[in-house]
């Protein structure tokens, strides 16, 4: 198996608050890893560090064996090979759906307009949003907006997709349509690192689950093992709370 991403000893602080306290993680191509853990455990920060939206304090990150952290690297080039989808969608409100999706390919990848649009339309078609191409984001439901955000990332044809609690801001009845998209991507072999609170979904889709607590990966393994026989007391405690909340 080829390694898609490697995270080595990553530390990250915001002011005095140390959010990541030495994270090591390796993700193979076509692998799907779910990051679980309480809010504030560092899931989002880890994803943002991998996407180079936050500089790491120490440690390094490799993408397809190539180091992407540090000053000597063209970070824009590295970012083009990864996609990230945010909890709050973060679509560009002043652009139509189509323009949202073509912006990256045409400006960052220098694709001719026609080619960028063909690529975008193919994706919109595939995920049932072709009829929304000329709508502005505020005309769409949350679920539709999030699907457009996923498509916006996919249009860059990334080697890796980072998903940051992408269903947390959605009404319960809209979560299904978004998770369906992710299932389809997983089936198609997309490499994904997913921070999620949807334990059922994680159990379903992940090849491996990593439990983050206070900035460290406390436990990792296949979903059956993590959910059925967690080893660490912290993992047990976390899962117990999830079960009590009726989320597993």
């Amino acid at each position, binding site marked *: 198996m080829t390694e898609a991403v490697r995270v080595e000893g990553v530390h990250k602080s915001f002011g005095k608050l140390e959010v990541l306290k030495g994270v090591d993680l390796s993700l193979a191509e076509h692998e799907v890893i779910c990051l679980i853990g309480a809010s504030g455990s560092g899931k989002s920060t880890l994803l943002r560090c991998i996407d180079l939206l936050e500089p790491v304090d120490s440690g390094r990150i490799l993408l397809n064996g190539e180091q992407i952290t540090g000053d000597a690297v063209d970070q*824009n080039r590295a970012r083009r090979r990864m996609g990230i989808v945010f909890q709050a969608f973060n679509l560009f409100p002043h652009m139509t759906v189509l323009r949202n999706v073509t912006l990256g390919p045409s400006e960052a990848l220098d694709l001719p307009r026609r080619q960028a649009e063909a690529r975008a339309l193919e994706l919109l078609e595939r995920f049932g949003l072709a009829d929304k191409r000329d709508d502005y984001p505020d005309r769409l439901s949350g679920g539709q907006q999030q699907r457009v955000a996923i498509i916006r990332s996919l249009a860059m044809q990334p080697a890796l997709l980072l998903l940051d609690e992408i269903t947390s801001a959605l009404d319960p009845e809209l979560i299904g349509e978004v998770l369906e998209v992710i299932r389809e991507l997983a089936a198609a072999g997309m490499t994904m690192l997913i921070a999620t609170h949807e334990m059922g979904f994680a159990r379903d889709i992940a090849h491996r689950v990593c439990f983050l607590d206070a900035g460290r990966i406390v436990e990792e393994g296949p979903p059956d093992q993590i959910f059925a026989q967690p080893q660490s007391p912290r993992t047990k405690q976390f899962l117990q709370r999830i079960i009590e909340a009726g989320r597993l």
Partner: protein
Amino acid sequence: MTELEPTSRRSRLVGDLFRREGAKGVAVALLSTAVVLFAIGWLVVHSKNWPAVKDSFFNAQEFRDSFPDIAQKFVRNIEYFLIGEVFILSLALFLAVLRSLPGPVFFPLRALAITYVDLFRGIPTILVIYILGFGVPSLGLRGVPVSATFWGLVGLVLSYSAYVSEVYRAGIESVHPSQVGSARSLGLTRLQALRFVIVPQAVRRVIPPLLNDFVALQKDTALVAFVVAVPEAFKEAQIIQNADFNFTPLVAAALLFLLITVPLTRLVDWLSARERGRRQGGAVL
């Protein structure tokens, strides 16, 4: 916010009253307005100095004679306004973008932009126009225009750019940082993120305050009168006033400015109300 729509199209002053108080309320308001206006009018007309005031400020004959000349020169004010505005909008945006560049590398550019804004916001516009309009032509530099009008206009542009750049900056800062994150995560450079994502959203948001500055600029074109050789409306009115010993031409000039600025102000109000309605209405983000 659906309520806002119909009322914001018309005069909200009367519209609100009608909604709150009904037809009777409007009737009372009209009546009391008429009484107040009549009382003020009566007092003014019957004051001791009214005949003299009327003759030197509101002389109908003088108005008829001077108005066409002043109106003709007023075209220059509109010209100054339009030309000035183009340069102001571009220079101000440039300054605002410079000031929003992040990181230590861009410190000198940021410092430069801040110095510029501090300087030109701190000096009265009329002084800038005076210094440039009289100062630069007197230097007799080769290859530099000697027209006082040109330099007066430059002064106006420099001064207003400082104000307008602050309006832009407020707009840029009002765009949520997650929008930058979104753009950068697609692999766009800082400048591309500014160009495609931040600035377009910022400009949309600041259109009403920008138009406010338009209104102010339209009036302040009269300041160029202090340095120009070729008269615009204010200067022309002054010339006639000096010749006829009558202030009516100045009132005529004032009226011309009002003809432009009042509709422009109403337009700004309308746009602001619409923008407010839109923001509170839909928009998920």
